[in-house]
C-alpha cells in the first residue's frame, strides 16, 4: 500500500502520529509530514488505515 499525505490540507490534529508514529512525524506546531517512505509495510497497514480514518480533514489518502 502506498499513501499520500497532503500537507496543504493537514490541520495539525496529530491523530496520524498517534496511530502510526513510524509513518507520520509532527513538527513543533503539530503539523504532519511523512516520516519516511510512503510505502506501507503489510504489517503496518492496520495502524495506517486507522490514521487515515481518524484524520478529521482527510489529509491522507491511499494511492494504491
Amino acid at each position, binding site marked *: 500500500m502506498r499513501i499520500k499525505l*497532503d*500537507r*496543504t490540507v493537514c490541520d495539525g490534529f496529530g491523530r496520524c502520529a498517534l496511530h502510526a508514529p513510524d509513518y507520520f512525524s509532527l*513538527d513543533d*506546531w503539530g*503539523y504532519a*509530514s511523512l516520516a519516511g517512505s510512503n510505502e506501507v509495510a503489510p504489517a503496518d497497514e492496520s495502524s495506517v488505515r486507522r490514521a487515515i480514518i481518524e484524520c478529521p480533514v482527510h489529509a491522507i489518502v491511499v*494511492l494504491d
Partner: protein
Amino acid sequence: MTESTITGAAHGTSKLLRVAAAPGIVPRLLREQTGREDLSEYLATGGYAPSPDLSALLQAVEASGLRGRGGAAFPFTRKVAAVRASRTAPVVLANGEEGEPASVKDRWLMRTRPHLVLDGVRLAVQLVGASHAVVYLSDEESERSIWQALEERPVDGYSVSVHRVEPTYIAGEETAAVRAVNGGPAKPTDKPPRPFEVGVGGQPTLVSNVETLANLPFLAARGVDEFRTYGTDGAPGTFLLTLGGAVTTPGLYEVALGTPLRDAVDQLGGNRGVIAGTLMGGYFAGLIGPRAEQLTLDYDSLSQAGSGLGCGAVSILGGDHCPVAVAADVMAYFGRENAGQCGSCFNGTAAMAGVLASLREGSADRTDVERLRRWGEVLPGRGACATLDGAANLARSLLLEFPDQVEGHLGTTCDVCGGAPQLKPFAMTMEPEGSRR
C-alpha cells in the same frame, strides 16, 4: 555591451543596470542591440531554423547536459523523457513567472527576445510531441511582447496560449503554475503527482523555465559540441546571472557556468572591495560568507559548498550589509509571501522570522539561536513546495557562515544594521518599455 532599462532597488534607490555578456563570451541568450527583438531581427540571427529530426534532437538534448535554469537545475533530458513516457498527449508549459525578487532574467528574455523563447517552445513541443503550449507569466510587458511575437509569426501545427497571474513568490513553482492554468489559485499542490504525470488539463506536462527553453534553438542549430564550449562537464553552457547588491554595476550578465564568482564581480559588477558574503539563488539558496569569493558559479560546486545557484541571481554583501539584517529581512519576506497552505511553512517561517527580528534588534538570547539552528535542520522537506526549504537554508547558512556576527548580536545591536527593515532586499525591477529614460 548595452545599457538597459533594468533598475535595481537594492538600497532603496534606483540605478541603471547593465545587460552584457562576460568577457570572452559570445552571447547566446542576450543580444547586443537595445529594445525588443522583432521577427526580422530574430530570423536574421538564424532563428526558427528547420529543426533536426526528432531522434537527432532528442540525442542532442541528452548529450548537451542542459539543466533547468529555473532553480532546481534538473536535467532537461530527464524531464523530456518522463513526459514522453506517457501515453496521452502532453502539454508544454513555458514558465516565465519569475517570483524571485532578486532575479530579472525571465522578464528580460520575454520582453526583449520573445521569439527566442517561442523558438524554444517550438522545439520543446517537437521533443515531447505536444499539440499545445502555454506561456505562463505575471509580467504585463512580457505578455504583450509574447502576444506580439505570436502575431508576427503564428505557430503552425500546435497552439500556444498565454496565461498571466498576479506576481507572487510561489506562483512560479511548477505545481502552482499548473494549478493556475487549470483555473485554480497560483499556489503549489503537494506531490505526487508531479506535472510530468498529471499537469495542464490532466495531461502530462513539460514545465520548463523560459531560459532553459531559450537554450534549445542554439543547441538545435549549432549542435552539442558547440553548446558545450562554455560551462563545465556537469553544467554545460551559459546562464543569465542577475548580479546585485554591493557592486558598482548591478545587471544581467551572460556568463559561462563554472565562472569564478570573484571574476564575475570584478569583471562585470565592478568590484567595490571586499566581498563580505553572498545571498544565493535569489532568496532561495541562503547565505555564503567571505569564502564565497573562492567559489565558482555552477550547480555542482555550489551544491557541494552547501549552497546553490538556483535561478542564477546572486546578491553581493559588502561592508555596509549586516548578514543578520539581510537574513531577518529575507525571512520576514518568506513569512509574508509563503502560500499560507502548509502549517509547517507558515508557522516555521513566522517563527524563524521572529527569532531573526529579535536577533537583529539585540533582544535574542542563546536559546533563541538554538531554536533557529534546530528549525534550520528539521524543517526542510516539510512543505508541499520548496519555500520552507529556502527559509531553512537561510537560517542554517546564517548560523554556519556568520557565527561571529550572530554572536555579536546577542544582547546588543551592531553598527551596520541600524537601517529600516527592507521588504525586498536586493530586489530588481524592470521598467516598462514606455518609461525608458
